[in-house]
């Protein structure tokens, strides 16, 4: 019924994009209300679609349009349980953030471009979520990358924003190429790019080929979801407006990589899942450690996002299909909330350095409360949403591998540490120099904060309303059985792990409280004691340095050689041919004397030659 019209969902924001580009100029808020109304309509439609999927319990796949008549290229829609969850996240959070933008972007000189690019992003993200085949998915994926690039570089006059946009584009491009290679391998070997057809063919396919293809597809997810070693672009992407960070770099686009892994989950082999798990674990721990030392409010949250994306990846890697998606769902609420709070704080204080802030609670009670809710949920302390998904993840990881469990548990402690460190420094304590003139932000900005707070508090309780069995319907039946069997091993230890994780979080919170609020130990002295570690962390494990070394020293020198070959060999050949014909022409033009009788003589000469040939051939030409 309604689900058959799901194609309208991405179409409406796309129309908004066109309308704003064409007619937004000079309108109030640069056409912001066009974006709000059309994206709002799209949200209602997607909520109706989701309701239908929930009520009927069936996914829907359209027959699709045959593209270019190529076999297996059917461009259609697939709205199943997994897409429904993503659809919910993208449309609801997209709408909330567009409303918040009305307040946040007020007075910016270029709001028209902002709303146009945001609409384009939401349109492509919605298309990505409901595409039924990997080629259409890839097209939407690239559009998402493009709009992310445009929005990171929104304030392109700032050199740091322009270079951050370029960095994000180039780094994710590495992943995109791998994803494309993976899709091509699947198409060559299995002859289709339709996701559901791939599920049917996968069990009979060559395991080595599947491992390679899924690893390449995971490479795409590593780029987009900012996993180690391609995580370097996300912290720099904070140069964009904070609303962009909240929507694209916390709730939706970065989770597209996780969604991709979940989308083609039945194709993954145990070998490729092992890589997924370890990459996720390493990312979670590394990013959480870096988040502890950062002093820019948005960067702390950015590293936190990388860390939590690592949690989702590790969950998917260890077979916790539900755990990963559940955490994705919860994370998008509390992380979007935290970003919007950070946006409100930046809006009020005009700085991003947390040491200039402090004591903001009294000035901004609503933002402070919302931030506290987000922090509580993120830290994974019961009973709010972050706790439920983190609990399932730890359960699954424990059943898989104990070393990986230790890594993940370390990341959980650090999560609690960095987020409450941020909260205490920004909102508690004595007033910083930027706090004095701060005041609570306008209604249009606090209302979205409250809406997202409700999501951050209660989204975790969906686990009691059959979210798991709902989600599992989007996987083929035999796989569900295998996953259930794997998680049954952990059933005996489940309670202990829950108590263990709660105490981990409590240790983290108490430590932060002791250091930053009660000042039992000075933060500076801790930093001094562990100064080598601090240096490594503040330099982001030197990964940026390594990449710069590779690109400036190695790739640059290769480019110089290639340039030399191009200039002297390739260009040399082409120019040589050109020079030869010029020289030949210079001689030949002497024939054009301007005397008409010379030409007549040549005509006679030519005719004579023809006649001689005529004679030699015996009168036949």
């Amino acid at each position, binding site marked *: 019924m309604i689900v058959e019209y799901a194609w309208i969902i991405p179409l409406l924001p796309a129309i908004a994009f066109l309308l704003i580009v064409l007619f937004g100029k000079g309108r109030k808020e640069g056409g912001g209300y066009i974006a709000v109304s059309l994206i709002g309509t799209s949200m209602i439609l997607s909520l109706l679609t989701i309701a239908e999927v929930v009520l009927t319990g069936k996914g829907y796949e359209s027959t699709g349009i045959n593209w270019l008549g190529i076999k297996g290229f059917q461009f259609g829609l697939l709205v199943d349980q997994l897409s429904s969850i993503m659809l919910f996240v993208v449309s609801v959070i997209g709408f909330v953030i567009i409303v918040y933008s009305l307040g946040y972007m007020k007075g910016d000189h270029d709001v028209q471009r902002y709303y146009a690019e945001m609409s384009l992003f939401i349109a492509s993200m919605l298309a990505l979520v409901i595409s039924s085949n990997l080629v259409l998915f890839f097209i939407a994926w690239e559009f998402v990358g493009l709009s992310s690039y445009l929005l990171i570089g929104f304030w392109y006059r700032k050199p740091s924003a322009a270079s951050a946009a370029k960095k994000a584009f180039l780094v994710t491009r590495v992943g995109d190429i791998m994803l494309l290679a993976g899709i091509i391998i699947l198409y060559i070997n299995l002859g289709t790019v339709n996701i559901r057809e791939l599920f049917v063919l996968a069990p009979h396919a060559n395991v080595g080929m599947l491992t390679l293809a899924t690893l390449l597809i995971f490479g795409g997810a590593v780029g987009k979801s900012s996993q180690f070693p391609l995580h370097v672009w996300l912290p720099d992407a904070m140069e964009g407006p904070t609303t962009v960070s909240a929507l694209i770099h916390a709730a939706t686009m970065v989770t597209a990589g996780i969604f991709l892994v979940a989308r083609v989950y039945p194709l993954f082999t145990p070998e490729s899942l092992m890589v997924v798990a370890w990459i996720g674990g390493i990312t979670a721990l590394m990013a959480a450690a870096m988040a502890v030392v950062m002093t820019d409010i948005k960067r702390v949250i950015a590293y936190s996002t990388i860390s939590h994306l690592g949690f989702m990846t590790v969950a998917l890697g260890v077979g916790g299909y539900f755990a990963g998606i559940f955490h994705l769902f919860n994370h998008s609420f509390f992380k979007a909330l935290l970003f919007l709070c950070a946006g409100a704080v930046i809006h009020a204080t005009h700085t991003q350095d947390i040491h200039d802030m402090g004591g903001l609670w009294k000035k901004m009670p609503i933002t402070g409360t919302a931030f506290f809710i987000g922090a509580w949920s993120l830290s994974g302390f019961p009973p709010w949403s972050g706790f439920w998904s983190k609990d399932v993840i730890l359960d699954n990881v424990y059943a898989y591998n104990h070393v990986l469990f230790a890594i993940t548990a370390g990341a959980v402690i650090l999560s609690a540490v960095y987020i409450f460190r941020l909260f205490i420094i920004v909102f508690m304590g004595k007033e910083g120099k930027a706090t004095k003139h701060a005041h609570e932000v306008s209604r249009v900005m606090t209302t979205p904060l409250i809406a997202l707070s409700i999501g951050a508090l209660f989204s975790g309780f969906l686990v009691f309303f059959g979210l798991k069995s709902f989600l599992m319907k989007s996987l083929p039946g035999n796989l569900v059985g295998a996953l259930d069997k794997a998680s049954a091993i952990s059933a005996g230890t489940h309670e202990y792990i829950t108590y263990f994780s709660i105490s981990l979080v409590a240790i983290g919170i108490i430590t932060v409280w002791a250091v930053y609020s009660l000042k039992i130990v000075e933060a500076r002295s801790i930093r001094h004691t562990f100064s080598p570690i601090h240096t490594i962390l503040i330099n982001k494990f030197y990964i940026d340095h390594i990449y710069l070394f590779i690109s400036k020293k190695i790739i640059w020198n290769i480019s110089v050689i290639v340039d030399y070959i191009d200039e002297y060999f390739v260009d040399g050949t082409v120019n040589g041919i050109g020079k030869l014909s010029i020289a030949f022409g210079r001689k030949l033009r002497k024939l054009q004397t301007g*005397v008409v009788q010379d030409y007549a*003589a040549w005509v006679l000469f030519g005719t004579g030659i023809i006649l001689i040939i005529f004679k030699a051939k015996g009168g036949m030409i």
Partner: protein
Amino acid sequence: MIEVTVFYYLVLSVIIFSIGAYGMLSSKNGVRLLMSIEIMLNAVNINLVAFSSFQGNLTGQVFAAFTIAIAAAEATVGLAILLALYRSFGTVNLRKISKMRW
């Protein structure tokens, strides 16, 4: 009495054509060049009429008539061009009228 075959006519035609061609290539005066071209055309006419007469086919003679008419037109155009050249260059010496060269 020698029998006059088509061969004799062809030899005559070749001689006249060669005279015309030589005149065309060697004369400096533009009017002489036009006259040489007329001679060459008439050599062709002799050819056409001779073949026509010996084969009993009138087509060749019709062609010759056409050639004469067109030669007249060509001479008109050629002389007009020469007149125009004389006005702008002050000479009809073809060696001196060689502006269109490299």
